[in-house]
């Protein structure tokens, strides 16, 4: 067995049977499970279940995280970060760093949106997101984040994996690595994509990097075949698949008889049982037909597509938000939903017109996210679920192009958190008066990562993995801190 996963050896052998990795629950085709008896007899030497449930470092409220990823970089000064100074100086020329060390004369671009304070907390939100605005009292909005890259590729990587360099595990993979999966029949880390395409640079955003592939995000499709190779090919019924697995396991048991000490052989037998169950459990988690009409409407499943050629109906993101709730209900640890795919105006990358961009994308997410927050709350799940909203960076307060576009801006941008362990109705940190650069209570995204891990009950210093001569961490070697101002 590889040394790379040696830290796993130390943990979780007992929970061997209880995860997406190698699991057994419900119907057993192998006939010898549940298998504590079987496994109890085997020396634990090589027995590694990468997704066995592992305890959090400290007690926590949040059991799961839903990360609403606004791919492309949403515009903070048009949504949550109200900047009266910017409005006052709309159209004035200023010097502004547009790309790394590239300062250009640019014209300030005030928002065309109307900002209002909402709820008891009086948090600002623009009229671009009227439904989310009604939930401001639930959110902790941080307006003073910054990160290290002006380019999507490396920025997405840093936001998801902590580094601007490719090859590191993603946040969801770290959570799966640290906590395992509490549902035996579903993956620990699920990713759902926009139908217009994935984000730049694709699967690296939910990769497990140098950790085993078991931790990587499983892409679940809300329509069509939910998991790769889930269904048999050709005319094979579920019953026939069962016959086949039963026979495989019979052969494998005979093979195992003379090789009892090799626990990976037993693990593989168990993995076939799980594969059989996934065939029903995964579609069940995705099947929203049992949800009431009221619930469907809550998430905006009844809404029609906006009139822009590039927009899609809110039903798409709404369905994913609803499925995210169902997954979390069923014990999935980390769900990441992407709004926006492909390039430019197909996502939140508003180079070619920020108004146009908001018009395309805000309606696609507004009702779905508001519905998710309301639904989690009414089911008493919000306390146990951490909801994170944001993209890979923010946008510039100045004009780009002819159509009032905004360029990338990693120097200051907004995220919000809600749910388990989060201090509701909070506005934290500030950008400078023009909304360009984080100014008050500045935090690098590594602090956001540390905070998310903290809310999931994990000490970011202790979530490590040995690679390249170092115990690697999501937050890297530069010290990171939990953003206390966001915590309840």
């Amino acid at each position: 067995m590889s040394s790379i996963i040696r830290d796993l050896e130390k943990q979780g052998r007992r929970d061997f049977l209880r995860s997406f990795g190698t699991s057994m629950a419900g119907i057993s085709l192998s006939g010898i499970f549940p298998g504590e008896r079987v496994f109890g007899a085997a020396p634990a030497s090589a027995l590694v279940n990468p997704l066995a449930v592992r305890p959090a470092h400290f007690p926590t409220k949040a059991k799961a995280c839903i990360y609403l990823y606004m791919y492309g970089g949403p515009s903070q000064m048009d949504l949550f970060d109200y900047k009266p100074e910017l409005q006052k100086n709309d159209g004035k020329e200023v010097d502004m760093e547009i790309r790394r060390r590239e300062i250009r004369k640019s014209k300030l671009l005030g928002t065309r949106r109307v900002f209002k304070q909402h709820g008891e907390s009086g948090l600002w939100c623009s009229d671009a997101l009227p439904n989310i605005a009604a939930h401001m009292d639930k959110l902790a909005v941080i307006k003073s984040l910054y990160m290290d890259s002006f380019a999507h590729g490396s920025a997405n990587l840093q936001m998801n994996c902590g580094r601007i360099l490719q090859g590191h595990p993603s946040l969801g993979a770290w959570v799966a690595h640290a906590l395992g999966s509490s549902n035996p029949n579903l993956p620990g880390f699920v990713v759902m994509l926009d139908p217009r395409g994935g984000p730049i640079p694709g699967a690296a955003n939910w990769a497990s990097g140098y950790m085993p592939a078991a931790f990587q995000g499983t892409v679940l499709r809300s329509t069509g075949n939910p998991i790769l190779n889930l269904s048999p090919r050709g005319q094979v019924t579920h019953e026939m698949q069962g016959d086949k697995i039963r026979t495989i396991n019979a052969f494998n048991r005979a093979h195992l008889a003379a090789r009892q000490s090799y626990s990976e052989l037993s693990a593989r037998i168990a993995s076939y049982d799980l594969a059989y169950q996934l065939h029903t459990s995964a579609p069940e988690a995705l099947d929203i037909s049992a949800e009431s009409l009221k619930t469907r409407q809550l998430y905006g499943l009844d809404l029609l597509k906006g009139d822009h050629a590039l927009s899609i109906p809110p039903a798409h993101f709404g369905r994913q938000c609803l499925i995210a709730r169902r997954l979390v209900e069923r014990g999935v640890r980390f769900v990441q939903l992407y709004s926006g795919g492909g390039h430019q105006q197909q996502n939140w990358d508003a180079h070619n017109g920020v108004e146009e961009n908001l018009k395309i994308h805000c309606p696609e997410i507004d009702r779905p996210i508001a519905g998710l927050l309301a639904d989690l709350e009414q089911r008493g799940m919000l306390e146990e679920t951490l909801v994170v909203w944001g993209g890979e960076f923010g946008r510039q307060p100045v004009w780009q192009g002819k159509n009032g576009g905004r360029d990338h801006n990693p120097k200051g941008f907004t995220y919000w958190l809600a749910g388990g362990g989060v201090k509701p109705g909070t506005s934290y940190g500030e950008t400078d008066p023009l909304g360009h650069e984080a100014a008050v209570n500045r935090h690098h995204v590594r602090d956001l990562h540390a905070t998310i891990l903290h809310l999931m009950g994990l000490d970011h210093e202790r979530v490590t993995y040995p690679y390249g001569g170092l115990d690697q961490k999501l937050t890297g070697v530069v010290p990171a801190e939990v953003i206390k101002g966001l915590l309840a």
Partner: protein
Amino acid sequence: MSRKRYKRACPGIALLFALGLNCVHAEDKFEITAEDRAYWAFQDLQQPNPAGIDAIIDAKLSEKGLVANPPASREQLIRRAYFDLLGLAPTYSQIREFAADKAPVAEAFARLIDRLLALPEYGERWGRHWLDVVRYAQTNGYERDDEKPNAWRYRDYVIAAFNSDKPYDRFILEQLAGDELTDGGDEGLIATGFYRLGVFDDEPDDKRAAEFDGLDDMLRTTSETFLGLTVGCARCHDHMFDPISQVDYYELASFFRNVRQYQKPQRGKEGAVLRKVKAGMALSVTEKGPKADDTHLLIRGDAGRPAQKVTPRLPGIFGHLQPDIVPTTVSTGRRLALAKWIADPANPLTARVMANRIWQYHFGRGIVATPNDFGKAGHPVSNAVLLDFLAQEFIRGGWSIKHMHRVVMNTRAYRRSSSPHAANGKIDPDNIHHWRGNLRRLEAETLRDRILQASGALNKKRGGSSFFPVLNGEVVAGASKPGRGWGWSRAEERNRRSIYAFVKRTMVYPFFEIFDYSNTEGSLGSRPETTVAPQALLLLNSELVSDNASLIARRALEKKDPVGEAFRLVLGRDPVSRERVTAETFLAEARQKHAVTAGQIRFRPDFPPSLFKDYHALLPAERFLQGPGAGWEFFKGKWTGGYEGIINAEVDWPPFALLQIATPGFRFSGKVRLEKNTARAMILLQARPRGQEFDGYALLLDADAGRVAVRHYSGGKFETLSERQAAIPRLQPLAFSVEFINGQIRVVVDDLEMLVGDSKPLDMGDGRFGVSAWGGPVIFDEVAIEDGNGRYPLIDIDYRLSRVSPPSGASVHLPGGWSAFGGKWTVRDNVIGVTKEKGPKLLWDAAGKLAGEVSFTAGLRVTDGDIAGLIMNVTDPKVGADNWNGYEVSLYLHEQKLVLGSHENNFITLASVPAPVTRGKWHQIRTQVAGDRVKVYLDGRDKPYIDFIVKKPLPPGLAGLRTWGAEVEYRNIKIESGGKTLIFTQAETPAADAAEPGGIVLAPDPDRHGRRALAQFCSLLLNLNEFLYVD
């Protein structure tokens, strides 16, 4: 170690460091402690223990109170050796032969090892190990993830290096400094592709930092690969565990400082990464000139905060030696100096690190279990004496890796059985001390290769550009430009060994990824091994497994004992009687259950909602909607958009399939079933393809919206003729029928009936029956077409059993009995091919003139051009298009007809009928001549297409083949006369005895269920632990 070759540079610095003084501008205090210096890995190699490997291991075993396992069986040994050295399985007969070898096992095994080491498959196996270590991939990663041009030349270089047993020290020199070697040549240039394999951000946030990221990639890969040292940590601060300071890091980095940065190859700028070699262009390095820019230590690794200047020098733990650097006219010579230090036998790490890698790939675990990290953060060495013995032996053997395989494999330790042992298991459960052999799982590539090997599909073609494995739609969907940078390879290419598969950083082939494939981002010393449910799903349900299982079943069915043969092909052994019982029980049940589905045809959409347009253009239409391979023609449907090169599927114009024959005025009936995730199904009527779209009528079953509609599609628009709200239940068969009566369409779906066109008659026209599905599969059952003459059931044809490889590389020799009159005729595997020319003929004259009733049957496939067919009653043949007399029966592809003609130096059409003929599909023509009556059958239909009385019958003559402006293949040529078969050129292809499945097969395969059941059983065997693990 011998240090005389190196001069000490700036000895004072080492001293200052040793005293713990913060010399110059290093950020923190750094000292090399006595403990550091005494660390085992930095010591000179110990004199080898003359007793050898077994004695060293046995000593350890008795020290630990362990008992060595008995030897493995001969059957196990040969499997182990094949797996280790070739990554393939021995065949059944090879295993039997080895087991029956009378020589003592040690002797027989040694001979086997020699034989395997001489095979080219060895380099493909061990080259792949090396590619893990050097982070091999063929794209840059990041946003565009562009291809690194010709990266495969480096891969081929590595394979060739292993096959030719290139001494490892030379291997090091070539990869690190092949361009600086005076005798490096093309190989040396290609070898330096080593530097170019890493990730590269073509849109870096900070160009200044990006240069150092590139430098870091070269340095880390070099030090981990060759020295087992993880120096990467020292980029920002001194190494936390190992005696590598930040100064050391930048001094080492300065060896690579002058290498031109990777950049996108563009016309005029290619020199930075691509250099000319004899075979073309190769990924390679160049330097900026003989003098390098200054390198500075960077405070906290920040490119914007340079501190003191550094020069190329070895780390303090190696005494800060400064190798002799001799610049060439175009480069600094620094890399060559470094390479020579690494490849020096006196280097304490180099031989140990590689010997450990070799040991690891043989035993599944290294003597140092972290082969890239010999430092303190890595695993401790489990047997230092053994490691040093191997390292010394490696050097002594002239750095020969093949020598090391012999040294390692010809030991008792290697030949031990992998059986468990309770007492040993308590003391040493991980078998660190080698009391047994290790059970080992096939790696991703080995697994795939062995599946292809078992089915006989494995294509042994070696080297050259890579092939693209088939990706499912859902895999492609994850990319920001779905499918960009991926390609489409022909079936034979796709069956090459896994090492030849294209490696794209942002889209690793899921089969590989799920089975713990290499981490392409950085050097990987050993692969993690996980056991997860997606692996089971993949082996149960993937296309690769099910396709190959069908091929294995086909091979097995050629033998008298198919079950036994399946065991022999997949597992290399005979089944025992208990296993036979299990197998027969499974088959009997599966057969019965398959019988229920016998009449089913399944269509499954497999495309992402958005696609990059170039990839969309490359993908064959059969990929968009997957269904039966024969009898149907596939179309991509309408895709619109084009924003940023991305196009989107249109729900009202989905990919669809049309039956290959026209069916005017028919009635269709059957059952249709929508699967759980299927949103819509369409049944197309009187459809005529228009590009990738169609004109005609469509019955829409919209389960999502709960409606049934009949639409008329024409000229890129559609009109709804009738629509009714109706729940379409999923997961249950709905009876349907569609009928054309007097300009009206009568539709019945379940209990809903619609009559369309009652106000004005519809213009039906001609067309074909078709199908589409959206969101998920649609399954048809008991579908039949009825016309005045009868009822024809439509049955799924198992196309995997009727696939044929085209006759590329065909032999030019014609078999006896055939004479060519013009044209280039070739034969391979009993398939006769001819190139596109005007009127070439090939006549069968072995039996002379054929008298009496003659029947002439042949399968033919037109791959290019227009007219091809059979000729009979041929007399006076000569070279020249019109120089012959006889009958001709030909398919006309352009005009879609079947023509019977008579030729007497001039062609007269006797009969011409419309016929559904398709380029690239196998058709079958059967012609019977009896006196004045000529009957022509097509594609196995019972009713002749042509039944003609000739006024003036032609005299007896020869039979043969003739084409006109067409590239054609013929197979299964059968000539019968007077009830006797005179010739039957049975192609080595499946279904050779069945009718050519070109159109609808009206006679179902009598043992379809049996074949499907056996295919299921073969796929089951591919799932067994016995197949996945090697004892």
